[in-house]
């Protein structure tokens, strides 16, 4: 161990550092490997024992071993030491290790810096309002520790330190807001791999009807949509995300070509399939604010287009982002709800959408041929197929029986129970077998309207699959077999569709969504969601784009010069006001009310031409005043007596302040 260290970190600062450490670990716990948390807690516990004087700090070799093995373990776990995940694990370990060997003020300052980093990195993974408030609290704790470090050792009240730190933090808020709003947002300076959170719930790019006996539903939010005009009817809200056009008898998948760069056209480039999409009528404009999915696909109503940089349109009329969406992301879309897609179907596309496995499901193929023969044209074929679902005893359920072998046959002729994936898959199979190009489209359907913010909430349980069939002259037409079987699923949402079954959100644990029938729960939930919506839109989604829009509405046009001037003026104004506040002198040099009165007496005396000499005692000065103004000598004498009593008598004189004040007023 080293020799005696002269400097001792104030206990005050140490208290807050320890509190900040434990508080700083918490937001990382669910994401980090468990051993990181355990090592951190061990370090913290050890430091507490040292703090209480029970244990000694670990020796140098043990610390070296800890640091080395910590780094190696992070490397082993993440395969790297860079990037937000491994980086934040390293930071957290470093924070705790450094706390173990903190002797000097310099060490403590390093711990504080690491503490701020721990807070900042937590924001890579936690973005909700509650998380933010909590992390601000941690930030405040670190600041309290920093403040404690610079108090003199005589100040040992941690509460007071915290109060001072809180004042600093609160005073920083206005300036933070100014900087947040006005500092120009620029795009990434260099490309980085975005941190990916642990497995996210969301849409899958495959669909295997009959594999799961129970559709797991999540009450998690998928995205929110803010319409610029009126919200279309619920049965119009088909949020297209994926097109599944390949079937192997079991699973519906995307054709490999969909992943090819040529499948997407980016804004600014000539659109090679412009002629195959015709918008008819007025476009509906809206903004989608989506939760991270770690996938590139976006959600939009048909037929969608977006001018936003980095958002492209695919050959199958979906929108995709250039990079996977790993942060809350918002984009503006214009959709022509009335449209015509691929009025002329190219041969290669028709072939692709007629693809079926070589064999299997003979009964369904037989049925398809019968349908074909019964129908005069394609439209009739579709309506006949749908009539099948209506007339046969099909039912909508979230707990369908498992299927195997010829799954479509089993579903269509035996079980006849299923959810959207079963119906969409079966219908496309029938249509293709009957020679009509068709494909499965997945995404979300419907949404919950929040009247508070005039926006639509789409949850994960709104995930849906439907069918697109190509009709000569009309192009791709949306057909939803689920709507035929369970009209309420499309018109009113999942909850109504499975009301009899009681399976709505049955396995998702507690969620306020389960209590939608209670009005006040709904009110609270929608209110809270509105808050989150505003948070996502105005804080998390505040980027270069929205900054430009917001500023041009305020400053009337944005350029660098205007922005610079606005920034400087705003900072100066905020700092000016704060400086007045912080540096305000209340004039009095004492807190003693009697002495304050005396000081006012002195000020009055000075105004009357008799200034107090430096070092002149109160009694002497008042006597001199009395001599200068003989008419008031008696009052001045009384003042002097009151002062003397106050200053030199052990017991306080009751009412001295009031009497002095009255005397002073009579004199002035």
């Amino acid at each position, binding site marked *: 161990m080293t020799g005696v260290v002269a400097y001792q970190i104030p206990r005050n600062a140490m208290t807050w550092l320890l509190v900040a450490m434990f508080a700083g670990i918490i937001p990382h716990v669910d994401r980090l490997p468990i051993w990181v948390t355990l090592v951190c807690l061990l370090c913290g516990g050890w430091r507490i024992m040292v703090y209480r004087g029970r244990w000694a700090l670990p020796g140098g070799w043990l610390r070296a071993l800890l640091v080395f093995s910590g780094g190696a373990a992070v490397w082993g776990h993440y395969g790297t030491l860079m990037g937000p995940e491994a980086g934040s694990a390293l930071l957290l370990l470093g924070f705790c290790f450094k706390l173990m060997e903190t002797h000097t003020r310099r060490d403590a300052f390093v711990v504080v810096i690491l503490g701020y980093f721990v807070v900042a990195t937590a924001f890579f993974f936690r*973005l909700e309002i509650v998380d933010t408030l909590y992390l601000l609290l941690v*930030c405040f704790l670190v600041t309290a520790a920093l403040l404690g470090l610079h108090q003199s050792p005589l100040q040992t009240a941690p509460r007071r330190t915290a109060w001072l730190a809180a004042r600093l933090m609160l005073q920083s808020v206005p300036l933070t807001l100014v900087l947040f709003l006005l500092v120009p947002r620029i795009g*990434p300076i260099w490309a980085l791999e975005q941190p990916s959170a642990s497995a996210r719930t969301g849409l899958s790019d495959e669909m295997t009807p009959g594999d799961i006996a129970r559709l797991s539903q999540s009450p998690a939010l998928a995205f929110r949509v803010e319409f610029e005009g009126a919200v279309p009817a619920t049965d119009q809200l088909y949020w297209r995300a994926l097109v599944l056009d390949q079937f192997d008898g079991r699973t519906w998948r995307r054709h490999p070509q969909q992943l090819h760069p040529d499948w997407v056209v980016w804004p600014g480039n000539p659109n090679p399939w412009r002629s195959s999409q015709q918008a008819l009528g007025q476009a509906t404009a809206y903004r989608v604010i989506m939760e991270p999915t770690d996938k590139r696909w976006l959600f939009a109503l048909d037929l969608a287009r977006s001018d936003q940089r980095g958002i492209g349109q695919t050959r199958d009329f979906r929108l995709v982002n250039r990079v996977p969406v790993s*942060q809350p992301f918002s984009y503006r879309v214009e959709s022509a709800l009335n449209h015509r897609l691929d009025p002329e179907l190219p041969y290669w596309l028709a072939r692709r959408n007629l693809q079926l496995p070589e064999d299997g499901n003979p009964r369904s193929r037989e049925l398809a041929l019968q349908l074909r023969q019964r129908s005069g044209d394609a439209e009739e074929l579709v309506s006949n197929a749908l009539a099948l679902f209506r007339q046969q005893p099909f039912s909508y359920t979230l707990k369908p029986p498992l299927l195997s072998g010829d799954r479509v046959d089993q579903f269509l002729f035996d079980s006849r129970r299923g959810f959207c994936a079963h119906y969409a898959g079966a219908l496309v199979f029938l249509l293709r077998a009957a020679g009509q190009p068709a494909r499965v489209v997945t995404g979300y359907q419907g949404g919950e309207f929040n009247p508070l913010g005039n926006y639509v909430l789409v949850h994960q349980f709104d995930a849906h699959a439907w069918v697109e069939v190509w009709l000569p002259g009309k192009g791709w037409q949306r057909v939803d077999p689920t709507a035929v079987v369970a009209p309420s699923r499309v018109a009113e949402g999942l909850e109504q569709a499975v009301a009899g079954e009681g399976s709505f959100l049955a396995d998702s644990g507690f969620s306020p969504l389960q209590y939608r029938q209670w009005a006040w729960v709904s009110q609270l939930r929608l209110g809270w969601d509105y808050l989150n919506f505003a948070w996502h839109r105005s804080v998390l989604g505040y980027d270069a784009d929205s900054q430009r829009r917001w500023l041009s509405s305020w400053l009337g046009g944005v350029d660098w010069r205007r922005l610079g001037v606005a920034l400087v003026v705003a900072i100066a104004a905020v700092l000016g006001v704060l400086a007045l506040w912080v540096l305000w*002198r209340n004039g009095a040099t004492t807190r003693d009310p009697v002495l304050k009165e005396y000081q006012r007496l002195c000020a009055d005396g000075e105004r009357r031409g008799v200034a107090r000499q430096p070092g002149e005692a109160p009694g002497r000065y008042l006597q001199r005043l009395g001599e200068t103004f003989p008419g008031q000598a008696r009052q001045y004498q009384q003042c002097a007596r009151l002062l003397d009593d106050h200053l030199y008598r052990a017991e306080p004189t009751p009412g001295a302040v009031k009497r002095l004040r009255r005397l002073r007023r009579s004199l002035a």
Partner: protein
Amino acid sequence: MAVLMVRRWWRQWSDNWLRRRLPRTRATTLNQRRIFILPTRNGVYFLLMTFAIFLGGINYSNSLVLGTAFLLVSLFMISILHTFANLSGLRVSAGRAEGAFVGEEAAFTLRLSAAGGRQHQAVKLSWGRAIPQYVDLVDCDTAAATLLLPVTRRGRYRPRRLMLESNYPLGLQRAWSWIDLDMAVLVYPRPIVCDYSQRLHVDKRPGEQQTEEGSDDFHGLREYQRGDNPRHIAWRSYARTQELHSKTFVTRRSSEWWLEWEAFAGFGVEERLGRLCYWVCKLAEEGHSYGLRLPGVELGPADGALHRRHCLEALALYGEVQP
């Protein structure tokens, strides 16, 4: 060489500039004219950290990480105000200054008060080679600090500028101020232990004892007066008579001494002064009456603290031009 010259020129220039800007004074209140403020090394590190967080926020397009960076920058700026406010409004005035012997430390007492009515924390006072002191003005309006400055030269000692500094609250900036406080002490010669062979012993009329008020022998009782030493109150007589009386004492003045400059002929000036100084202290301690004769100065025989001080002052200022 050139560096040295530049350095000397710079020191002289800054010294003059400070003197013009901050003239010598007995008391002063710190304000924006007197307070300088700059970021500390830690402050620079803090800004670098903030910049790193800012880059992270930009590159990952994360509003909240950016927000953290903005919050930290704001904290930095706000702490400038607070560091400044921690010194501003602080009133520093000269208090007692006690003389000392060469090689010892002179005690300078400063009085600090919060003229702005604010709190001041961890204000560091450094003055010359004194060990720096930290002063807090929390929940009180005034505080005193005594700085011990080592003195090495006999004569009148006037310390250079006093520095007040503070990096409270966050240590990111350091505010400091120079004050040319008008405080001076006398530095007495370093006492040199020696014999005094020429004990000029003057007995005044032997047999007749001279007495005066002192502390050696009990003399009698007199009525208690305010301000009398409580130790001298005759409690036994109080118990008897219910009246307060004080005991009086007398000192027997048995002899008078003359301390002569010439007695140490052959020594250097400082040597002589040191020896005389030793004897002044010794005789004063023993309660003798003594006189001091220096070239141009003669202090007649007397005793007591005041006389001792006069003698020491004469020794300290020997050879100096009286101001």
